[in-house]
Each structure stands twice: as C-alpha cells, then as structure tokens.
C-alpha cells in the first residue's frame, strides 16, 4: 500500500495541470449533485416542517354562509369522522380579487381573515414574519414582499371588481394559503379594516374550515368527499378548497424544475468527467509504458500499479467532492433566493450530511469503476517493454488522409490525420459536445418558449388565455353578450368558466366549460381526441386518465351539486392549472349537474384596445352585475415573470457551465496532445513548420469531432427535446410537449460554441511556441 501511495503522489506531482482540470470537473459534478440532493431531499421537506410548525391543515374548505347552518353541518360532519384528527372553523370573507404584482396583476381567490383569528387559530394559523406598529391595514403573504410592497406603503386590492386601498402593516406566512399557487390566498386585515370590509358587503361572509387528518395520504380523497357532502347539503353556497398534496406540489414547481435540471446537469458533468478521466488514464499508460515496465521489472505487481491509480484518482475525487459540497453551501443561498419567489416559504440552510455522503458515494463509486476499467490494461504490460525503451509494436492499419492523394491544404490534411488517429480524443470530444448540444437545445427551448415569448409556455402550462376575462351574474348574460358583440374592440367572446366537480370514485377535478369549444384560442389543450361537443361528452386530463386507466370512449361518472351523471370521454387534455386533475365540459354538459350562478367570459380584443379601460367600461355599464374583471395578459405577466426570471438564471447558468466544461475538457485534451506529440512538433519545427501552422493544425484537429458531434447533438436534441420535456413535466400534468424547436438559437449557440472552442484550443496550443527544435536534437 505504501508503494502505491508513493507512485500515486508522484503521478499527481508530475501532472499538476491535468490533476487540477479533473478536480474542477469533479468539483462541478459534486456541486451539482449536492445542490440537486439538497433541493430534492430537504428543500421540499421544508414545507412539511413549516406545515407542522403552523399546525397547518391537510384540507382547507371555504364555504359561503348564504344559506345558514354551514358551521353546524361542518361541526357535525367533522366530529363524527374518525379520519379527522383536528379541525377549526372560523368566520372569514371570500372573494375573487386582484392586485398589481411583478409588473402584472395577481388574480386570486382571496380569503380575508381578521388578524387575531388568523394568528390564534389552533389549526392552520398564520405566522407574522415582518410586523410593524401600524395599527390599521393589511398583512400580505411573504411571497408578495417585493420592491413595490414594503411595510408602510399602500396597496390597492380589487375585491371582486371594487378597488380598496390598504396600508401594509407587515407580512406573514401560511402553509396552505400563503401564495396564489395554493388556489386560496389569505389576506389578513386588522380588526377595523376587517369590520369595514364586512360592512361594505364586497365579500360575502364565509366559513373557513381547516381539517387535519390522521392519515395525510387521504387528503385528496377527503377534500373531494367533504366538498361533495357540503355541496349536496348547500347547493347554493359557493365554496372552494385546497388540499395538502396540491399545495405542496404547486408551491414547489420551480423547485421541481430546478432540481431536475440540476440532476440532469450533475449526471452530464459526471459523464464528461469520467470520459476525460478514462482518456487520461489510457494516455498515461501509453506514455508511461517504459516506467510501468520498469516498475514491473523491479517487482511491482499489476494490482499495486492499478491501486496506485485508484488511490491517485480517489484522492482527487475526495478532495474535489468535498470542495464541491462546500461550494454548494456557498451557492445555495442564491438558489434559495430564486426558489423562494415561487415557494414563498423561508428556508433555513443547515448542514445536511446525507447529500454529501450520497454524492461522495456516487462520485467515488463511478470514478473507481472508471479507473479500474481503464487501468486494467496495465496487466498486459510486460517488463521487457522497459528494456525496449517503452516501444510498442504499433499497429497502423491505415494511412489516414494520404498526402499523395488528398486535395486538402497541407495544414488541414495534417490536422485531419491527427483527428483520425486520435480515437480517444474524438470520443471525449464527441461525448462532451453531444451532452452540451443537448444543453444548448434545452437553453434555446427555454429562451424561445419562455424568456423571449412566453406564449408557447403559457399555452402548455396555463391552457387558455385571452385579453380579458369577466365574471358576470348569469341573469345579465344575454345583455352582456349583446353589448360585447356590438363593441368594435371585441374580436371574440366565449364562455370559459371553471368550477370544481368530483369524479365518482376518484378526486376533485377542475371542470372548465364553454358553450362552444371551437371558439377557444388554444386548440392544443386537447392533444388527443377532440373537445367535448355534446352534453354527454367530457375531455379529461391525460395524466389523470393514465392514473385511472381511462381511454377515449370510456364512460366516467361526475358529480356536483348533489347530482351524478355519466359522460363519455371525447379527448385528453394537458393543462397544469390543477396539476393534471381537470376536465372540460360543454355548458349543457355541466348543466346536467346544476345551473351556473356566475359565468366567466373570455374576450379577445383588437390589438390597439386598452384592456383595463375596456374592463372598467363594462364594469360601470353593468354596475353590480359584474363580479370580477381580469386583465388576463397582465395577470399572466405577473405570475409568469417568476418563471421567466427562474429560466433566465437557469439558462445563463447552464450555458456558463457548458463553456467552463468545454474549457477544461479542451485544456486536458490539448495538454495531452502537446505532451504526446512533443517529438513530432520538434521534428516539424525543424523541417520549417511555423508555430502558427502547428497551432492551427492542433486546434483544427479537434474541430471535425467537435463539429460533427455538435451538429448531430443539435439535430438529435431538437428531435428529442419535446419528448424529454414531456417526461420532465409529467409530474405537473404535461404529457406531450409541443414547444417550438429552437433552431435559430441552437445553430447560433452551436456555432458560437465551436468558434469559442477553436479559439480556446488555439490559445491552449500557444505553448507550442516554446517547443524548440534544438531541444529535440539535444534530447533536452
């Protein structure tokens, strides 16, 4: 063992540059592995810790108190249910509303609670994160603490369609109602403001019911059950709900995206590091054949020599992995800052030994395997090689690019000769560039479909978008449509209303209905089959259909308002609004279950129309009969800017990472080539080749593999990126991605990467200048 340590130490000392480059690659892999494991193992678990800390509910239900007796009914129901461990009922007010946020609008379903109640609830209490001495005003969820909203400033909240101005007293956190991603957004008012709102009648009196279950896994089915029983008893009372699974998933979509990207990048970087490492070992064995033969001649065994390589690279891996783990704690606050704008839940960073241990095991295990596989050829070296000065019998099978026949210019021909005789280098370059091309395509996809123009992303994630959405009372529907059809700014108006229904034997589904689905803007929502056309048809989320083994043509039982009806599945949808638990019904189809009391209409306006002015006009015209108006694009911009920021950071980070990887891989390859071809460069210089010619030849020799693998990588990347993204987004309900392939971006980025790689290879090859032909002749 001591002998192996000595050899390993000597090897590391002799190849400091290569060692440093391999350390950097493994360090990057370790950094990404740790970030991924921290995000996936602890970051999401932080929600549970927070949930427990606030003794938060597993099912939240808000029910209008229009028909009296809801509280009593809920008390009776919950008291008699053995699945319930704890519950809490409080008065609140519930109304759709909006406020300006992130350069757009935040539209949500607001649950207004008074401060004392909110902070003292035994189940589902809120926690003030930042307070003040301001006695009258509003407390907002921590998520909305942005540049515009700080303590002491004012905020205008539209309650329904009436704006109300409040002073911000502070910020709070709530596990189940702390963000628009929770379906329900809690707004805490001081006692006086709560009383004012109550007196104004803008938001109806509602019961806030928070239920903790003995078995958390039943949360989704219990939500459906509870809602069904309440709607059966109180069909006229509006209600809405959320449950633990939905909230915990939807608050952590960005964490899921980021964590998946980190995992993919970690494995990509590890793969590249392993390829480089194997190439390095094979090269080491070839160039040190004489020394290895000599060591064998004096009695070293193959096992000892392999052990020395294992020791050398495992030492490097241990150092790099530890440094990468340490660095991950330096980088994590930035990742957390990126995530918190979506989760809204503070995360206290702490040392996590398990991610460090797992990444160490992954890195150490794969490196050990790679070293062993590459170093096995040491067994074949015979001591006699030392006596032959390390000369091996070369087996030149082909004279690549014979100069006698080629039409290429000399430098290109010699570069191509080097390329074709360097299989190991080509494999390393190819694997690196194939992986990085995929990364480039992904970056391009995100740039063109999210960062530059969010429409494709919205079409996939949000589903339907229009310029304006107006929620009206059904009594004025005909007048409303007549008025809008007469307005020259209106291009299209159609019913697009969402309500919850229950799948009998399944879960709560968000049902979106329209009087005519042929009028919707986003026809891609139904990606298989067709939109429902008749009142006995339904289109359901593909993710849910897969879970329940439903196919087009199957029958499904849906209940709402105490009634149950059967529908035939006409198509499969993919919308992430409700994380893949949604369906589409025609209006007539829904009305088999009950009548609509309010209806949301989507409106397309002409390009020059002012959406806010239009909404205000309609609101004034139908005063009292309009429940809410939404500037849809502004809302989308508000919510979408979080994803745009996230994607921008991710794209920049992974492109920068790609450049760093190319730099280190090229450094290793060029350095190895310079060492291996030192004699050849000396001979060529003595024959009259200039430094510039040799630099050009060296840099060019990497280009064929680089160009071919980049082109193949980009082509394959463009072809597989949508299926890969579908896999990637399957957990939020996407089954078939239809993003535009980022051809222009990929081509430009690919060309950029190749040119950068060529320039960098030239720079690295500049060392050739120092090679003096005299050194060759005097054996210096």
């Amino acid at each position, binding site marked *: 063992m001591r002998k192996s340590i000595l050899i390993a130490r000597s090897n590391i000392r002799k190849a400091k540059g290569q060692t440093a480059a391999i350390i950097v690659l493994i360090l990057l892999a370790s950094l990404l592995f740790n970030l991924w494991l921290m995000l996936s193992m602890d970051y999401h678990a932080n929600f549970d810790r927070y949930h427990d800390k606030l003794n938060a509910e597993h099912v939240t239900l808000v029910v209008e108190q229009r028909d009296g007796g809801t509280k009593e009914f809920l008390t009776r129901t919950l008291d008699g249910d053995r699945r319930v461990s704890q519950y809490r009922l409080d008065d609140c007010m519930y109304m759709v509303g909006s406020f300006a946020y992130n350069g757009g609008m935040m539209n949500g379903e607001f649950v207004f609670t008074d401060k004392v109640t909110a902070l003292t609830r035994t189940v589902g209490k809120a926690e003030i994160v930042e307070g003040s001495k301001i006695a009258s005003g509003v407390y907002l969820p921590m998520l909305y603490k942005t540049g515009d909203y700080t303590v002491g400033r004012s905020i205008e909240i539209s309650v329904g369609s009436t704006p109300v101005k409040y002073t911000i007293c502070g910020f709070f956190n709530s596990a189940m109602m702390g963000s628009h991603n929770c379906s329900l957004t809690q707004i805490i008012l001081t006692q006086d403001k709560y009383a004012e709102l109550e007196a104004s009648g803008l938001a109806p009196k509602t019961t806030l019911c928070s239920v903790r279950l003995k078995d958390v896994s039943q949360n989704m089915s219990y939500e459906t059950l509870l809602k069904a029983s309440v709607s059966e008893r109180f069909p006229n009372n509006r209600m809405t709900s959320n449950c633990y699974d939905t909230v915990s998933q939807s608050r952590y979509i960005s964490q899921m995206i980021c964590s998946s990207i980190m995992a993919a990048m970690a494995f990509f970087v590890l793969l590249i590091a392993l390829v480089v490492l194997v190439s390095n070992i094979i090269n080491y064995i070839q160039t040190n054949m004489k020394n290895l033969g000599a060591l064998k001649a004096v009695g070293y065994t193959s096992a000892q020599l392999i052990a020395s390589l294992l020791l050398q690279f495992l030492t490097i891996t241990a150092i790099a992995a530890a440094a990468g783990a340490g660095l991950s704690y330096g980088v994590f606050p930035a990742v957390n800052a990126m995530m918190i704008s979506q989760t809204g839940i503070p995360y206290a960073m702490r040392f996590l030994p398990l991610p460090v241990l797992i990444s160490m095991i992954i890195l150490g295990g794969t490196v050990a395997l790679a070293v062993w596989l590459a170093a096995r050829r040491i067994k074949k070296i015979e001591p006699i090689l030392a006596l032959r000065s390390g000369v091996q019998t070369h087996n030149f099978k082909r*004279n690549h690019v014979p100069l006698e026949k080629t039409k290429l210019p*000399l430098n290109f021909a*010699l570069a191509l*000769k080097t390329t074709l005789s360097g299989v190991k280098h080509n494999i390393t370059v190819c694997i690196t560039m194939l992986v990085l091309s995929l990364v480039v395509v992904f970056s391009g996809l995100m740039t063109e479909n999210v960062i530059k123009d969010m429409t494709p992303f919205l079409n996939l994630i949000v589903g339907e978008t229009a310029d304006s959405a107006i929620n009206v009372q059904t009594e004025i529907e005909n007048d409303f449509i007549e008025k809008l059809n007469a307005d020259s700014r209106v291009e299209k108006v159609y019913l697009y209303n969402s309500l919850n229904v229950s799948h009998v034997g399944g879960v709560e589904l968000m049902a979106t209905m329209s009087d005519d689905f042929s009028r919707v803007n986003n026809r891609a929502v139904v990606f298989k089959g067709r939109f429902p056309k008749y009142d006995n048809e339904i289109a359901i989320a593909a993710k849910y259909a897969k879970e329940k083994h439903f196919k087009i043509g199957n029958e499904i039982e849906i209940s709402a308002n105490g009634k149950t009806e059967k529908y035939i599945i006409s198509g499969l949808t993919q919308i992430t609004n409700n994380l893949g638990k949604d369906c589409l019904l025609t209006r007539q189809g829904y009305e088999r279950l009950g009548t609509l009391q309010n209806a949301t209409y989507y409106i397309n306006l002409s390009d020059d129309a002012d959406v806010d002015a239009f909404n205000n006009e309609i609101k004034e015209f139908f005063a009292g009969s309009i429940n809410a108006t939404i500037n849809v694009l502004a809302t989308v911009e508000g919510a979408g800017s979080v994803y745009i920021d996230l994607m921008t950071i991710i794209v920049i980070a992974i492109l920068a990472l790609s450049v760093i990887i190319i730099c280190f891989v090229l450094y290793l390859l060029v350095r190895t080539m310079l060492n291996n071809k030192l004699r050849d460069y000396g*001979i060529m210089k003595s*024959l009259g080749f*200039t430094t510039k010619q040799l630099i050009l030849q060296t840099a060019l020799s990497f280009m064929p593999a680089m160009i071919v693998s980049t082109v193949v990588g980009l082509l394959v990347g463009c072809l597989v990126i949508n299926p890969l993204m579908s896999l990637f987004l399957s957990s939020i309900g996407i089954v078939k991605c239809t993003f535009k392939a980022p051809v222009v971006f990929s081509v430009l980025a690919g060309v950029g990467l190749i040119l950068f790689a060529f320039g960098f290879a030239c720079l690295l090859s500049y060392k050739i200048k120092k090679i003096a032909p005299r050194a060759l002749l005097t054996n210096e």
Partner: protein
Amino acid sequence: MQRQILLKTENLSKTFSNGGRQQHVLKNVDLELYQGDFTVIMGASGAGKSTLLYALSGMDTPSLGKIAFGDKIITDLSQDGLAVFRRDHCGFVFQQIYLIDGMSVMDNVLSAGMLVNKDKKALIEKAKALFTAVDISEDTQKKFPTQISGGEAQRVGMVRALINEPDILFADEPTGALNSKTGLDVLDTLTKFNEQGQSVVMVTHDIRSARRGNRILYLKDGVILGECDLGKYAHGDTARHEKLTAFLSDMGW
C-alpha cells in the same frame, strides 16, 4: 576561381548556463561555407560541433555574433522567420532519424515538400525519383517508420531533407545509429548528391565518414583550430586518407 559563399559567420558565440555556471561552447567563430562543398566538422566530444551545426542551420540562436545567408542576416530572424529559412534553404539528416511515426514514409517526405512546393504532382514525381535514387521501393514508401529498418529510415530521412532542393544539407552524425554496411550506404548517397552539386555540412567524429568531405574543419573548445582541404584528392585515393590522418594528428585527434 572565386567560390560562392553560402553562409558566413562573424564572432559567433554560444553560451549555455548550467546550474548558474556559464559554459562558453562556441567562442567568436568566424567561418565561411561555400556552395558545392562537402564540409565536415570534426572534433572531440563537447568541442561544440553540434552547437555550431544547429546555429548555422537556424535551429538555434547564438548568444552573440551574426550569421549571414547571402544578404539575409538569419540571426535577426524571429523563431517563425527561422522556420521559414529552414524550410526554404536547409535540409536535415539527423543521427536519430526523427521520422514522424504516425505518418507513412511517403507522407513524411511530402509533409516537408508541401510546405514549399505548390505543384503537388511535380513534388510527388520528385519524391519518387529521390526514393528510387536511395533505393526505397514503392512498398516501403507506403509503410510507417516503425515498420522499416534503420538504414531505410535514414535514407527516407535523406529524401525528406532533399525534397525541397535545399541550398545546404546539414547532417548530424548521420551514420551514428547505423551498422557499418548501412552507414556506408548512407555516406555513398550523401557523396552522390554532393557530386551532383548539393552543398553538405556534416558533423562527425568518424574518420571514415569525414573522408567523404572536401573540406574538414576541426573544432576544439569552441574555436576552429584548423582546416584541411581534401578536394584535390579523389575518393578512394589513399593520399586523401593520409592527408586527413595527418591533419587530425596535428589537431591532437
């Protein structure tokens, strides 16, 4: 008859620093090399023979002094300028041969030839003629350096050195790594090319090799101690050998 000067040195000096100690290998060497000569540089080990050869051929830069090739002062050239000088005017035959293992015999020659010659067809013809002249078969031309004998490799080295019709062919102990038979073949080839007008500068410590030269320079401790003209004696003439032996004896050989 006035002989044409090919290379001329003035006060050529070369100093190496060895562990902080200055070692003066060449000391103010003034020398003229002439067109068509077979100049042999002799001397004991460490006399500075190879250093002089590398300096003359632009492989190395002297510490002091100047080397002129016609109007061109090659000591003023950059490294790349020296490379161009070597490719345009010099050919090299090394003791260790130094063929590039990854290239076939033909490619070793053409890679040097294509640096200078634009007419590839003519270049290939010339290469084939030279291969024939040194008795390298077409089969051998397709082989790689590790697949041919030492003698063959040295003859390939000579073809490579001559492919660009250099003004001077520099040879550093060209028979040093060969057995006596193949060494003799190489010397015969060099003599043959010299007789066809090729200027040759050869470093050797072998008296049989030195006999091929018409001008012998004897170097000792970095200075040219003396020179001997063998030009008036025919090859094979015993007087040539006696003259050389006497000269070397005078020089303390």
